[in-house]
């Protein structure tokens, strides 16, 4: 009788195989024949720097919100290898409509607890970039008690996840599915990231809407949000919505603004470390692209 871990591994590998088989089947899109915004010249580093004003609302009770003033971004695309901020990967298959990568990406939940985590500066995801609560919580919620001693915040290690990433374009919609498994040996959990971007307006400026959901396995949720014997959570499903605006200005400058709203799944929201189930991130500023 296979163990739970073996079943999970088999399910993961099966999904990976299904992703690989289904990846090529998507409708065509204009080819990458000129250096447009979504096409790049291999072998070059790309940098951008955003200067503006924004905030990440901290759902931790009495936690400090994180201001967003300067947001650096960088990427490198080789013939197959790529670096995209703190993510890295290899492109296994690519055509005009579909791309299959094998990608490694940090587990973003650490930014809840460690202010110096790089993802608090590179802003890769809207779900997890909160400032840490330097002070332990004064009390626990959801019926957990610790007597007179507050539950100290954990300090999780840097964890990286890896797995296949399928992105596709159908008509004007852009979709993405990542099936990731933690390989740094901290919790052996899984995360599935999925998103869909819908262009609303495309003229002298672009207005895009996005939606998605992130599934986090029980092992991942427990590693970050578990409270030892007091709280052993299961898996969590975090849906999100976002809207973004971009307007090219003169030369290498553009203006951007976005708002990102995420709802934390109950297994996370009920954690003794979390006070609010909603996460809001917004920013508006000028971007310089090099």
């Amino acid at each position, binding site marked *: 009788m296979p163990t739970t871990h073996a079943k999970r591994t088999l399910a993961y590998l099966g999904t990976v195989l299904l992703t690989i088989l289904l990846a090529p089947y998507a409708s065509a899109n204009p080819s*990458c*024949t*000129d*250096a447009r*915004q*979504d*096409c*790049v*010249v*291999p*072998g*070059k580093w790309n940098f951008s720097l955003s200067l503006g004003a924004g905030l990440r609302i901290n759902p931790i009770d009495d936690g400090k919100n994180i201001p967003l003033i300067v*947001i650096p*971004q960088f*990427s490198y*695309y080789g*013939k197959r290898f*790529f670096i*995209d901020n703190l993510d890295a*990967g290899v*492109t296994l298959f*690519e055509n*005009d409509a579909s*791309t299959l*990568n094998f990608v490694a990406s940090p587990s973003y939940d650490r930014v809840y607890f460690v202010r110096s985590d790089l993802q608090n500066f590179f*802003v*890769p*995801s*809207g779900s997890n970039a909160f400032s840490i609560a330097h002070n332990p919580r004064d009390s626990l919620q959801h019926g957990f008690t610790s007597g007179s001693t507050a539950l100290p915040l954990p300090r999780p290690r840097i964890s990286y996840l890896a797995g296949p990433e399928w*992105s*596709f*374009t159908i008509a004007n919609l*852009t*979709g*993405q599915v*990542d099936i990731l498994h933690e390989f740094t040996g901290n919790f052996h959990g899984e995360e599935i*990231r*999925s*998103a*869909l*971007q819908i262009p609303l307006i495309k003229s002298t400026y672009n207005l895009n809407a*996005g939606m*998605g959901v*992130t599934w986090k396995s029980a092992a991942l949720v427990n590693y970050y949000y578990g409270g030892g014997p007091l709280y052993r959570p299961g898996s969590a499903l975090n849906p999100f919505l*976002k809207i*973004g605006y971009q307007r090219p200005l003169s030369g290498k400058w553009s203006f951007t603004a*976005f708002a*990102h709203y995420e709802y934390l799944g109950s297994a996370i929201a009920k954690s003794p470390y979390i006070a609010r189930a909603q996460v809001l*991130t917004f920013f508006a500023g000028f971007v310089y692209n090099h």
Partner: protein
Amino acid sequence: MNRHNLIFWGLLSLTSTLGYHYSYAANDAGVELSVSPRVCTLTSGDKQCATSVHAQWSSPTPESLCLVIVGRPEIKHCWEHYAEGTYSIDLIFDEDQIFQLRDLPLEHVLATAAVRVIKEAVRLRHRRRDPWNVFN
């Protein structure tokens, strides 16, 4: 003028005419021009070639000629009564550069050589599609 004189002057005229053309053609055939480098390759990151071009010519007989570059009237270097010559110049260009040896009035082309520009085809790739990223 008797018939012999006519034949003599006719043959002399014909010989002179043919000789002139022959020598001119021989000059055309005899003057050799070469340039180095012969090819400049532009990669995807290059916009122009910037290199020193060395031209070298030789002739079996002393010649008076000028070296010019097509499309660059400011560049001209002449030799008078030389059987060989060299010339080097730093150039910046993104199209083929045609070097010519011409006579002193610049009316006739005696020899031609070129520095060819080869542009490598840039193969673009898609940027990573990442709608899950809050900043995309």
